[in-house]
């Protein structure tokens, strides 16, 4: 019996990995044969970042059962810390692969550390409060990045929160972080292949976490915190584990995102509230708690508006409607009843698939 359950999990995970690999092969074939427009090709790397973000947010929303609206903030932390590193090290480490590897580590660790720092106060809260505090955190990060000026010259690093002139640098100094203008000239180290490899690693981490002892503890906390506590589960520890892993993975997504852009700036569009909502839409459409669904939803919702050019004006509107309709359809007690009555042949699972 136990063996059989194991097999089922392994099989489901295997399908998820396979799905990513098949999509990768298909896309590569399309690129090789030249049947993919350059616009679509430009979307591939951000798409990898979105998929990782969706998977990592699903860990928080679906498995931990808390709504984080600050995921773009963690992504921002990962993006800026790694871009800063890469720009400083561009002459020291000439190998793009090695440099990107270190940048990745730095981005993930910094975002993870921020996850722990934010998690300590935030995870004492729940539900609405947690959502609004993570949202506040995301906005604070964006604000801070926008007033940061860091330069480097022969004397070392200079730091200011006012403007580039007040850094007081020698004439040979280089401005690395230029406040609202962000970081310019990050080496373009991330490619679609690296992105897909990172998606696979992310999946490996998340799926293994979910199906481990810790993962079951996290889900127990989600389903009933008090009951979980009373059987001796350390609520703070496991909540923190899920939250910081999720933050670190969002940082990884930030690293990919940053190393694909010539100029990295923190704007509401890429690291603000809207980004967090967009990721949430991916998670909700794919099914809360369903990792494979998040991947598919991220891909479909990113590529669809680009494929149907006429729809791009209505993209945000469609996102909003998708969000509302999916929530009503999936969670309203009346809708669940209706589905059981009329759509029984589809064999709906009312609970999340985990």
């Amino acid at each position, binding site marked *: 019996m136990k063996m059989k359950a194991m097999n089922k999990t392994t099989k489901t995970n295997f399908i998820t990995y396979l799905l990513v690999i098949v999509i990768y092969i298909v896309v590569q074939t399309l690129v090789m044969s030249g049947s993919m427009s350059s616009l679509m090709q430009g979307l591939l790397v951000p798409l990898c970042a979105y998929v990782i973000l969706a998977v990592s947010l699903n860990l928080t929303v679906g498995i931990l059962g808390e709504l984080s609206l600050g995921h773009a903030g963690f992504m921002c932390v990962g993006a800026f810390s790694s871009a800063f590193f890469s720009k400083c090290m561009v002459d020291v480490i000439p190998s793009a692969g090695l440099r990107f590897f270190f940048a990745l580590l730095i981005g993930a660790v910094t975002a993870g550390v921020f996850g722990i720092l934010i998690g300590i106060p935030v995870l004492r809260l729940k539900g609405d409060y947690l959502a609004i505090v993570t949202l506040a955190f995301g906005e604070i990060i964006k604000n801070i990045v926008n007033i940061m000026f860091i330069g480097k010259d022969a004397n070392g690093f200079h730091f200011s929160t006012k403007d580039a002139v007040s850094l007081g640098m020698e004439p040979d100094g280089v401005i690395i972080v230029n406040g609202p203008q962000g970081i310019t000239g990050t080496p373009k180290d991330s490619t679609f292949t690296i992105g897909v490899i990172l998606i696979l690693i992310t999946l490996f981490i998340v799926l293994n976490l979910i199906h481990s002892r810790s993962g079951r503890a996290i889900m127990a906390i989600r389903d009933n915190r008090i009951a979980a506590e009373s059987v001796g589960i350390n609520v703070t520890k496991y909540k923190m584990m899920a939250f910081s892993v999720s933050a670190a993975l969002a940082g990884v997504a930030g690293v990919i995102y940053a190393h694909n852009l010539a100029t990295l700036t923190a704007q509401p569009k890429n690291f603000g509230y809207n980004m967090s909502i967009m990721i949430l839409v991916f998670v909700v459409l794919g099914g809360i708690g369903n990792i494979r669904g998040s991947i598919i939803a991220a891909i479909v919702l990113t590529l669809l508006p680009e494929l149907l050019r006429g729809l791009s004006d209505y993209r*945000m509107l469609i996102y909003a409607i998708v969000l509302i309709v999916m929530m009503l359809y999936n969670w309203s007690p009346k809708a669940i009843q209706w589905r059981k009555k009329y759509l029984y042949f589809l064999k709906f699972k009312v609970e999340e698939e985990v």
Partner: protein
Amino acid sequence: MSFISYLINGISLGSVYAIIALGYTMVYGIAKMLNFAHGDVIMIGAYVALTSMTGMGLPPAAAVLAAVVFCTALGMLIERVAYKPLRNAASPLAVLITAIGVSYLLQNTALLFFGANTKTFASVVPIPPLTLAGGELTISGETIMTIAACIIIMIGLTLFVKKTKAGQAMLAVSEDKGAAQLMGINVNGTIALTFAIGSALAAIAGVLLCSAYPTLTPYTGAMPGIKAFVAAVFGGIGSIPGAMVGGILLGIIEIFGKAYISSQMADAIVFGVLIVVLLVRPAGIFGKNIQEKV
């Protein structure tokens, strides 16, 4: 003198936050949900007022009334369509995510109808500015109007909750939905009424906000909305005087932060306040600490 003028500006901005926060706090107290779309109802209210003034040539008072009526209807519609079906959903996240969806929907509908360009909002306040201390201190008519409106609304709402049957029903529903139902209170009706009042207040707040800061975009409401929620948490969610005090304190903190620390960091300071409050006193200034029981 600049200190006093900052203080008055802070109280004025805080009064707007307080009016918005009242909507949040009442809805939260009764429906136990964070109505994320509340901030965007403000924006819709301002657009309705603007359109009825410039497009239809209505006098300001009629425009405000139109905004109030429109937003009341909108608030009730949102509640009926999006929130009510999810009231007994298995996950508390369901209604929160739906509210985010509604907020997004309102923003993007406004974007389609009115465009992304910033619209200039003509003030609806007929009061002339007041000059004090030999011309050193000027208080604008909008400021006086905003503070007055806030006080009137606050008193009116307190009386409504304390003295009327509907107000008492609200208190009962926020205390215990099941018991209120058994006492013959129309729970769904009471919740709808709460949304109606909250949205009407949002419309007033929208008009006042845009009279004081005369720019209007589809995203105008989002930030004040979130800040007003911070104010509601600050004062103690579910408490009417708490929303008032929290709102005004937050307005003062924001204006002082802008003036004396850094104008770019003002938002970060406001959110920092939220984090500190939740750490030190999660129930807020006027809130009650409720232990969770099994």
